[in-house]
């Protein structure tokens, strides 16, 4: 079986898409791109004709790395039910790695699992107890550091800068994003995934150092 294009650069992002989480979602995207990788998630395609789970499985198959934030496991205010999308996609990613035959590219899959507090996950996904799960305390700086360390350790690339450096650049980018959105006639808080990713990408190219 052929390895998908850019397999070693693709990072699957499994996190909530709520407005409240949007800042942390953008933080993850920026950190992944500033480390030299490509962020992939279910939001990259807006095709209503595709079955969502098939689309997610296809993206998971194309990604070597997975960043999973299971922090949004609390009850929904209106429905009083928990959201299971993140644990489901985490299960798919771990399953793809586990059930891949020997020498298959999916055997190279690596996962970063994050929660808001340390050891909280043991109360609702106790089966993950054997895994190393990092906490981020809803702090963009902690998220960037976790992602940077994870990608640096697993990819062995020597081109990934430090967490503080990426965090400073993220703040600079956010500062410049507002006048940029005005120029493009875009609404800052209503950017699509592709618009945001492209903005980050082009900004990084223009601000190489």
């Amino acid at each position, binding site marked *: 079986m052929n390895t998908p294009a850019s397999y070693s650069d693709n990072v699957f992002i499994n996190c909530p898409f709520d407005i409240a989480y949007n800042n942390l979602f953008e933080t993850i995207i920026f950190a992944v791109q500033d480390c030299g990788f490509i962020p992939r998630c279910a939001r990259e395609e807006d095709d209503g004709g595709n079955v969502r789970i098939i689309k997610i499985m296809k993206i998971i198959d194309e990604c070597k790395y997975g960043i999973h934030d299971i922090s949004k496991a609390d009850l929904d205010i209106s429905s009083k039910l928990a959201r299971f999308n993140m644990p489901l996609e985490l299960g798919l990613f771990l399953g793809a790695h586990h059930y891949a035959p020997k020498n298959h590219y999916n055997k190279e899959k690596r996962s970063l699992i994050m929660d808001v507090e340390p050891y909280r996950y043991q109360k609702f996904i106790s089966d993950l107890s054997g895994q190393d799960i990092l906490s981020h305390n809803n702090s963009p700086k902690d998220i960037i550091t976790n992602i940077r360390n994870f990608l640096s350790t697993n990819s062995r690339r020597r081109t990934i800068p430090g967490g503080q*450096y990426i965090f400073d650049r993220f703040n600079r980018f956010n500062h410049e994003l507002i006048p940029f959105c005005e120029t493009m006639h875009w609404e800052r808080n209503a950017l699509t995934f592709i618009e945001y990713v492209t903005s980050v990408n082009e900004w990084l190219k223009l601000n190489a150092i």
Partner: protein
Amino acid sequence: MARKVRSDIKAGNPEKKSGLEAGAVRNPDGSDARSDKKLKTLREDFAKTQRTKTPGQSDLNGKPKKTVAVKKAPPAMASKSVITVDQLIASRRRIKSHPKTPSRLARSVSSALQKSAGK
């Protein structure tokens, strides 16, 4: 409208025809042009000097001005002390485009970023 002067005419001829004194036609560097030098060659010489010449390069007599060579420091050396280790590491990594990004969008975003950077 005056007729165009043929390019194979020699420098001595227009001097005679126009009643100019000998030595009126000159080379680009200001020296006297040989009377058997073709106008085409003279035009080419002038075009060559126009391409390379910058304002203030020759003095009033048409002689090239002597310039003092100033050795420029290479840009990397000039800003070497400012570059941090993180910057150096980050400069080595490649920024990869998302496979779903339309190239037209990337171009317009890039130009808008450049425009808004000055704001």
